[in-house]
């Protein structure tokens, strides 16, 4: 009897370990995560507008159809990245995701405070190499540290009503993301 209970206790403990390790391993094991879906549609280190979110043609689940979106799939191994995005008339935001879809930084047009959103994305190692005086003189330079070498930058522009979607898409078309020569 006691022996049977011990076996059950061992099973429950082991089950808990299986549960926790599968949950923790899921981001690495997932084959259909956002990055994998976009890897088939977008080049590396270039801003590409995404097709409009329509029924039956969604690239990712739970996308907001009121927004036009553009994606820059980045790889910082060649150096830091510079992102420039003109602000649309209504609302524009930039969200940075790691390779595993963790939104590590997001900013909207008003917080960026200019007509143009300008950001530098780099790894912690690349940030450490930026000369200090340069960082001071370029005080309005917004530097974002990426926890991973690869990831996604998603630019979103709101179309407050369906007729304004072309305006939102146009604002995104002028956005760029490119590797800076060091």
């Amino acid at each position, binding site marked *: 009897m006691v022996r049977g209970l011990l076996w059950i206790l061992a*099973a429950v403990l082991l089950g808990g370990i299986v*549960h926790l*390790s599968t949950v923790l391993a899921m981001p690495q094991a997932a084959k259909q995560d956002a990055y994998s879906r976009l890897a088939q549609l977008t080049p590396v280190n270039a801003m590409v507008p995404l097709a409009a979110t*329509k029924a039956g043609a*969604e690239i990712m*689940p739970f996308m907001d159809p009121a927004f036009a979106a553009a994606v820059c799939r980045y790889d910082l191994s060649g150096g830091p990245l510079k992102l420039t995005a003109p602000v649309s008339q209504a609302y524009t935001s930039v969200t940075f995701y790691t390779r595993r879809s*963790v939104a590590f930084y997001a900013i909207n047009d008003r917080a960026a405070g200019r007509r143009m959103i300008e950001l530098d994305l780099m790894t912690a190692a690349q940030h450490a190499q930026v000369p200090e005086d340069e960082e001071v003189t370029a005080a309005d330079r917004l530097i974002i540290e990426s926890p991973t070498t690869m990831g996604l930058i998603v630019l979103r522009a709101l179309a407050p009503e369906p007729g304004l979607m072309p305006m939102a898409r146009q604002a995104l078309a002028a956005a760029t993301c490119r590797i800076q020569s060091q």
Partner: protein
Amino acid sequence: MRLLFGSCFTLLIAAALGLGATWFTLTRGVAFGALTIGAWKAWPKSGSADIDPYARAMVARTGELPTGMGDGVAFYARTDDAGKAFDGRCTFSIGGMTPTARYWTVTLYTPEGRLVANTIDRHGFTSEEIVRDNDGRFTITVAPLARPGNWLPTGGIEQFVLVWRLYDTAIGVATRTTKEGPMPAIERKGC
């Protein structure tokens, strides 16, 4: 013999328990730190580097990109205010107050996060396009068949999810009370 049987039994039970618990938590959307206002639930931390392991696993499995914390907050509703699950063959009325935000959008999805095809190409509303009365109030009618005013078609699907996204808002991790963030009431009107 008994040892062999015992360890096989243990391993089987462990695998079933562990994988079952993982499947259950990831498909049911178990995540910690939910901000609940009425029928609406949001996970503001899921839009930051502090996202919990369950939400991370869920996001990786579904392939979605969570709304970033500096961008906005997404509230999900799967039931009406009485706690009854949404049924696309019934009529629901949504109205009332929204928390302060520069813009908001409301969108109707299938439980998997897909849009529902319909003839008028209507999947939701934004704060700018919604029709309001003289007091600035609005009512959205979620129904399978056409309704006057703000009609959000369900396409007659069995289950659906409503997502209310607030952009550029102070609502977030620090929000505790319903007073700070009054969300629209959801009432079932009949089937």
